């Protein structure tokens, strides 16, 4: 068996787990819950095995040293992100004896896996370019992704909190979460349409820049482009209008808003120091070793600084000004948007030194 077979098993497992958690959420059947947890644990073990196997395969092929784990291109980093996310989720499930988050966390993993398939990014084990051949790779990338995953968990609990705690449709917090969720859905649909329209997957980051949203917003046919915008507003409006159902579902969880608020803070409080040290400081030291500049205001660096400022804002607002609840949750959602942009947006839309994170 090779690593890609095992990854395949884990992928199918995570999708099954996602379905089971959602079914569990709907029917609150204990057996389904146990099945969901079992499937997740088994997939996680397969995933772990695949990770180490890929590490070993890269070594045997002579492309990487044993110091270089498979976390050096976009595909590998997303796979590693999912691994951290599921690990973090399993810890929370065991510690708080609550399965309900599963229905919110496994879809993030599912979306990430779908993103890999939709963009058709390269899954090959690639040799490391000279700049990446550093022992800092291990510390910098693993710690960055552990913090990204923690921020992802914080995002999930914050969104749940907002859904549960907002009452009126005219309330700013309600508008905020419904529009955020609506935009997310619109983006996913637009990207799926791109994929269906062009079939061929993007082979390079240049390529995806050319075809991203070509089936919808940037269509050469102005009618299609106009319709896309109208449809987007319709979708966002629908999410806004029907948010009450989501609230019913989330309220059916046995999670108190206080626990959600607590988790939102705790995951940030652990993620922030890891991100500062692993993402910013180790990144700067590595850049200093490789290029002779520890900070060059390259887009990736700048965006991670922006992310850092958002979470610093979150912590100061909470600890110094007593921001809790809705306001804190909104900041946490914004923080994760910045994380996603640092991670994907910079590589897909902007250019810079970190170009090996691209799709090719």
């Amino acid at each position, binding site marked *: 068996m090779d690593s890609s077979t095992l990854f395949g098993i884990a992928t199918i497992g995570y999708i099954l787990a996602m379905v089971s958690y959602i079914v569990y959420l709907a029917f609150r059947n204990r057996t389904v819950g146990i099945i969901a947890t079992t499937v997740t644990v088994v997939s996680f073990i397969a995933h772990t095995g695949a990770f180490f196997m890929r590490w070993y395969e890269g070594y045997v092929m*002579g*492309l990487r040293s044993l110091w270089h784990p498979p976390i050096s291109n976009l595909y590998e980093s997303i796979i590693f992100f999912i691994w951290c996310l599921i690990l973090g989720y399993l810890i929370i499930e065991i510690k708080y004896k609550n399965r309900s988050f599963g229905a919110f966390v496994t879809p993030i993993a599912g979306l990430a896996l779908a993103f890999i398939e939709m963009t058709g990014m390269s899954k090959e084990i*690639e*040799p*490391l*370019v*000279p*700049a990446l*051949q*550093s022992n*800092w790779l291990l510390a910098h990338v693993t710690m960055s992704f552990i913090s990204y995953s923690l921020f992802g968990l914080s995002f999930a609990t914050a969104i749940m909190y907002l859904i549960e705690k907002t009452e009126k449709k005219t309330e700013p917090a309600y508008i905020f979460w419904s529009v955020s969720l609506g935009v997310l859905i619109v983006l996913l649909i637009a990207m799926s349409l791109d994929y269906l329209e062009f079939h061929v997957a993007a082979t390079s980051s240049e390529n995806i820049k050319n075809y991203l949203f070509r089936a919808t917003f940037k269509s050469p046919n102005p009618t299609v482009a106009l319709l896309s915008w109208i449809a987007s507003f319709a979708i966002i409006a629908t999410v806004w209008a029907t948010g009450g159902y989501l609230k019913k579902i989330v309220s059916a969880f046995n999670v108190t808003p206080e626990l959600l608020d607590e988790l939102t803070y705790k995951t940030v*409080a*652990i993620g*922030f*120091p890891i991100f*500062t*040290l692993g993402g910013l*400081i180790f990144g*700067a*030291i*590595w850049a*200093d*070793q*490789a*290029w*002779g*500049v*520890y*900070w060059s*205001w390259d*887009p990736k660096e*700048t*965006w991670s*600084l*922006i992310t850092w*400022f*958002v979470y*610093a*804002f979150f912590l*100061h*607002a909470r600890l*110094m*000004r007593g921001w809790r609840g809705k306001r804190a949750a909104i900041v946490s959602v914004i923080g994760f948007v910045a994380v996603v942009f640092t991670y994907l947006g*910079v590589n897909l839309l*902007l*250019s810079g030194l970190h170009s090996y994170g691209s799709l090719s």
Partner: protein
Amino acid sequence: MAERDKTFVDRIWDFFASVKLAVVLFSLIALTSIVGTVIEQNAPPEKNIIVLKRLLGERLAPEAYRVLDSLGFMDMYHSWWFVTLLVLFAMNLIVCSLERLPRIWRLATEPIKPLNPDKPPSFPIRKEITLKADPETLRKALISALKKTGFRPMNSPMQKGGFQLYAQKGNWSRLGVYITHLSIIIIMVGAVIGIFFGFNGFLNLPEGRSSDVAYSRKDSRPHQLGFTIRCDDFDVEFYGMSDMPKDYRSWLTVFKDGKEVMRKMIEVNEPLRYGGYTFYQASYGMLSTGGGYFIFRVRGPDGKTETVTKIMGESFVIPGTKIKGTIKKFSPALAVSQDGRTYTYTEMMNNPAVYIEFTEKGKPKYSGWILKRYPKTWRLPDGSMVQFIDYWGVQYTGLQVRKDPGVWIVYLGCIVMGIGLYMAFFMSHRKIWLIVSEAKDGSLVRVFATANKNRPAFERKIETMVSNLTEEV
């Protein structure tokens, strides 16, 4: 002090001490930074005009560019207003920390005092247990239980048949936030020192040449190094037979006052440091002048081997024979097309090849391409071998040259930040009091405790301690 009694200095102090200012600065720095990631910094104007055209349309773009340019957005991270924001941020950080430090310092250094056993104040964590032993015999067990939990308890004397044990730990963790703030200031100081006293430059050094200057990145002006650096060789290593570079390497030698003082091979993640300067492998390229040396290791049919160095057009003799090889052509990157013709696919030395004609007593014997990366091509029909080692003296290594006396301060700041963050987020200030008094058939132990962070974890620890105690006694 009433608002109007405040002096000007007080007002300025208050302005910088406010968390509101911090929040405004966080937002301003974050939001303006976004602009600089969309507009490519220090790029040729045309590039950004194209970006602006896409965002704003044909008509507005040139005007928008002019406005943005005059506001410094084309090099915004060094513009006066962005630097002002950073300076304000630093001042805010310093004043905010100074403002709150005395109170926190007191909390961190205050020794823990015994409680009034009759009227203990309310605490978030409280427990009561009765143990079947008189207070004095319990003392030892309680002390060791506290020590096991990580405390070094203080002892109060016996009073009305009872006593108190009390302890605290992690009190210094209260300073974690300030250490983190301090580290940001240290890093900024290091960066400023680097800007004012550092040098950032480059040096393109051909194989075999030396230089005692590097060129500034800003204005390309030469900058005296105070020593001489020579490039002995440059080489690219590839993965297998592919064109994926595995390693860029330069062999450098440093001379000071005419004497060799250092010799080192550098790679991308492995720079050379000498005399306060650091030389990084940044780029490479081919000289347009040509005229290098071909280096071969030649082995005759009888196994005798020698190394020869020749220039284009020169000849060498295979040891032990009368066969003479003449260098006719060179290609930096040889490829064979489908119809069998050879051509050069790139100007870089990706697949260096040399065309040699062999003659014996003036009569042509055989001829062909010898490729550096393909050992199969080194073998000649008569069993001798011509290994193509290098075409030396035609490539240059591109070195990034930097002197940054502030970098060690930045590193120090990073270490301090690691310590500060650890203290601030993963340690907590925990206090515990055990008040022991006589009860009917034994002693009553009342536990009071508090933690400034992660209270549930502390509570669990105390529960374990209590249940262990009950079992032991």
